């Protein structure tokens, strides 16, 4: 199982974080839009997301989530709505915190259910390093080096990551 990428969206529908792993196109283009140096290996490319792709991803999850909730017609908790979908080439996992941020994880199609993984990425990586950092204005793109390396370590330590 490989994890391909992760997007994090804030409550204003903007992509505030994006990372890819194991991308075969990583050496083809090195568009470095970050102000600081990205600490990358050959496999990982860190740009703030091609904004068009990010918008497309957000549009997809937003529409699917609304559609799922309309089809349900009940008063149940919203976390039982849309959570993943699978195509022939990838599987997309979605986690939404009631306070706003949304996490989107893209893996290969055979991945197991990653809902708990996303929940713990949110709780132990995002909340710890981004939310609790008082010097960071909320809803701005995440430039935090510690966040990036913790997230990277966490994903690489997932049981089936290659």
């Amino acid at each position, binding site marked *: 199982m490989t994890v391909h990428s992760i997007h994090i969206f804030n*409550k*204003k*529908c903007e992509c505030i974080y994006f990372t890819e792993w194991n991308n075969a196109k990583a050496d083809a283009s090195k568009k470095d839009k970050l102000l600081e140096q990205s600490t990358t290996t050959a496999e990982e490319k860190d740009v703030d997301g091609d904004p068009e792709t990010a*918008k497309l991803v*957000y*549009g997809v999850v*937003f529409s699917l989530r609304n559609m799922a909730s309309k089809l349900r017609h009940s*008063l149940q*908790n*919203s*976390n039982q709505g849309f959570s993943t979908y699978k195509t022939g080439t990838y599987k997309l996992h979605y986690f939404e*915190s*009631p*306070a*706003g*941020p949304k996490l989107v994880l893209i893996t290969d199609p055979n991945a197991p259910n990653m809902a708990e993984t996303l*929940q713990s990425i*949110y*709780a*132990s990586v*995002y*909340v710890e390093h981004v*939310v*609790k950092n*008082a010097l960071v204005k*909320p809803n701005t793109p995440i430039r935090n080096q510690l966040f990036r390396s913790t997230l990277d370590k966490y994903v690489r330590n997932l049981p089936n990551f290659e």
Partner: protein
Amino acid sequence: MQGTPQPRSTGSSMQMQRNKQSGDDIWKNRTDKISAELFALTYGSLVAQLVKDYEEYSEVNTQLDKMGYNIGGRLIEDFIAKSGLTKCGSFADTADTISKVGFKMFLGITPAISNWSADGKEFSLIFDENPLTEFVELPDEAVRELWYSNILCGVLRGALEMVLLQVECTFVSDVLRGDDSTEIRVKLVRVLDEEVPASDE
């Protein structure tokens, strides 16, 4: 607890029991603790410095509320991460969660909920203890105007706004001022809408 009639009354009383248990559990096991004296003294010196800087007590109240607002916006994410709770079914559920899980988790106290308004949009939190005011006595000129723990109002306002509930939160009475009880009134102004992505026209 007096409440307006709700469609799922058995559901919400189960939710109340779960709230109480999860609040206690998180407080015991999953939060780091610091010394209460350190906390009370830090807050006290913060208020004292604000009083020195702003000189007007009403301005100090506003600043405390603003600070609380910023804290609340971040605290709610920590709250969700630790408690794993999702959206509340009703405003009464929200009130109960605030009291039994939220306050319990961060301050170790459980204020009582009472004085529901007829339309179910306002309630009061009654505090029988307040860790912020451990060693505090207000001077005479402050007694009439300063709401010492006003940061709590800001925290509630900021946190609830992140879950799309716009509320007004004010102190009604405070034991530091010589009243019988410490009471915060929380009023739901409106439910906010989620942001929709801007369309690419």
